[in-house]
């Protein structure tokens, strides 16, 4: 009953409707781009990029003196992309593996951002520096204009995905074939990664750095269980992302101390668990019903008993 009341409240309350709409927009955009990240085994790149955005946010503020979201978002995007380029450079030119490079980019960029932020404020105490907003986001502060900005940038990113559909499909599944067709795979990779940066940057204000990576990974990982087709997976990921966004916003209104970001992540996590269990054909509860791999006959063919051969 309480849940029903809250939903009605949301639909009638302008502020809450705005927040839910923002969370849904974010869920759709990060779901779609997350699908490619998960397929290309780059789930943790999102985590690294969201942390790498911090120095860009601080520098953008230092250079312009403006605190408006588009300015800070531009700064976040620039340093997020710088982080990715460094990632590619180090992984390609040295023997350091991708996991280490991700850890380095994530933590060092974040450290530099923290140092800049505290230097800017002339206060060594990071807690006073307003960093909490960046770390955990403040969905509650979303206003209609913010949602508009999110929708415009997110919509533009989705439009690019639609236009380069075939190219991104090739990039995800058969890069070499794409290259043999003469497609600029390297450039496409940079474009796709830049789009992921856009998705992350528009999510920072709502859910913050720490939890943004879950919104990239979870809807896509859930969607992957239900289908083997890219188109269906992308649509499902968008749907799951939006569900997590709206569901999380509604649930967080139910009780004290339920911050929106963490609740959205928990809803997304629940969708993953359900998908892992229930998805037809792949899901864990279907495993018992599937006939066992015919191990015994195979063995007897490969290693025939004495006298049979």
């Amino acid at each position: 009953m309480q849940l029903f009341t809250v939903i009605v409240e949301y639909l009638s309350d302008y502020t809450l409707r705005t927040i839910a709409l923002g969370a849904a927009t974010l869920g759709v955009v990060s779901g779609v781009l997350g699908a490619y990240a998960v397929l290309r085994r780059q789930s943790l790149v999102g985590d690294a990029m969201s942390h790498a955005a911090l120095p860009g946010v601080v520098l953008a503020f230092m250079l312009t003196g403006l605190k408006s979201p588009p300015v800070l978002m531009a700064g976040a995007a620039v340093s997020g992309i710088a982080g990715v380029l460094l990632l590619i450079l180090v992984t390609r030119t040295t023997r350091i593996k991708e996991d280490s490079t991700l850890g380095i980019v994530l933590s060092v960029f974040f450290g530099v951002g923290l140092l800049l932020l505290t230097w800017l404020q002339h206060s060594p105490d990071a807690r006073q520096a307003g960093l909490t907003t960046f770390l955990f986001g403040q969905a509650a502060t979303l206003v209609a204009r913010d949602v508009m900005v999110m929708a415009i940038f997110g919509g533009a990113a989705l439009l690019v995905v639609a236009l380069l559909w075939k190219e991104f499909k090739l990039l995800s599944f058969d890069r070499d074939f794409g290259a043999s067709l003469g497609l600029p795979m390297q450039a496409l990779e940079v474009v796709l990664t830049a789009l992921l940066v856009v998705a992350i940057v528009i999510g920072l204000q709502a859910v913050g750095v720490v939890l943004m990576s879950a919104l990239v990974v979870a809807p896509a990982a859930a969607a992957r269980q239900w289908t083997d087709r890219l188109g269906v997976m992308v649509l499902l990921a968008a749907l799951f992302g939006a569900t997590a966004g709206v569901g999380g916003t509604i649930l967080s209104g139910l009780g004290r101390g339920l911050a929106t970001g963490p609740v959205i992540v928990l809803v997304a996590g629940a969708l993953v668990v359900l998908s892992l269990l229930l998805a037809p054909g792949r899901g864990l509860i279907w495993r018992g019903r599937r006939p066992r791999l015919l191990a015994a006959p195979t063995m007897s063919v490969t290693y025939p008993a004495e006298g049979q051969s």
Partner: protein
Amino acid sequence: MTTMQLEIQAIAAVVAAACALPGVFLVLRRTAMLSDAISHTVLLGIVLAYFWVQDLASPALILGAAATGLLTVWLVELLVGTRLVKEDAAIGLVFPVLFSVAVILISRYARGVHLDVDAVLLGELAFAPFERLTLLGLDLPTALWVMGGILLLNLVVIGLFFKELKLATFDAGLAAALGFAPALVHYGLMALVSVTAVGAFDAVGSILVVALMITPAATAYLLTDDLRAMLGWSVGIGVASAISGYWLARALDGNIAGAMASMTGIFFVVGLLFAPERGLVAVAQRRMRQRWEFAQTLLAVHLLQHEGLPENRVESRVDHLVEHIRWQPVYAEQVIRYAERKGVVRRREGRLYLTDDGRRLAEQMVARA
């Protein structure tokens, strides 16, 4: 330098050294991002253990945190084991969920307690000397005792199981065949990472623990091929980052942990560029040298082929190279100068002659072909 400044630097150095040791194995075993996951999820262990004992100073918090660190690793492996998600996605799923649970538990049930989330994420080294503990007649900051103990633990474990860790890291198959149980080594190492991450929390926060674990170790990986040397370099770079980070933070009046992480980054970039063999500069130089040496060998072989034959008069002319090997005149001149400097050819009246060294080089090359 005041005692307090000295103590902060001592804590920073000990934290950095304690982190740098297990970091080496994380980098070598390609599990660096597990440290990121663990350093976030130990928050859940701290919260749950706190609900249990109701005391923030209790050692049970470290145990609880270490247990959630292992739980994280186990959950990731469980997810990967279903073969429904890949490892990177599994890590990206498990840690935000456990972390979210911790954040919600804190904000619902632990308000007002000194357990705020951003303190865990960011740490505050500057206040560490205020909490003190007297042991063995020594009055030192609590953080120094705790991290000193963890550093000692890391040293002892890595020292005792050095052979096992080495084998399981470089040849897991052989380790398994010899009965060393790679899974046990893996979980043992992850337990060390978890304990270290919890201890380092207070000082530098969970995000920058990753900087202290991974960055010095990765820099050391660029400098050496020897595991012992790599451990040494990693600790050295970690400690140097800690001390220089402290002074950088003082100069800028900024956050110490952030400055320490920034310094690990600077050491990494220096290593990336100037490492003796694997640095980008050394690699570029080697490529350049190889290019010149290839051209010089080509020139020597060309001269050898025609040596003592009638056409030699034409073939050994400097300007003939331009047509014959199709080198640009400027480039041909550069190659000849390089070869002259190396004592491979001599130039006399516009003709080139092989020196004895040059003839040997060309003959070796022809023999190999």
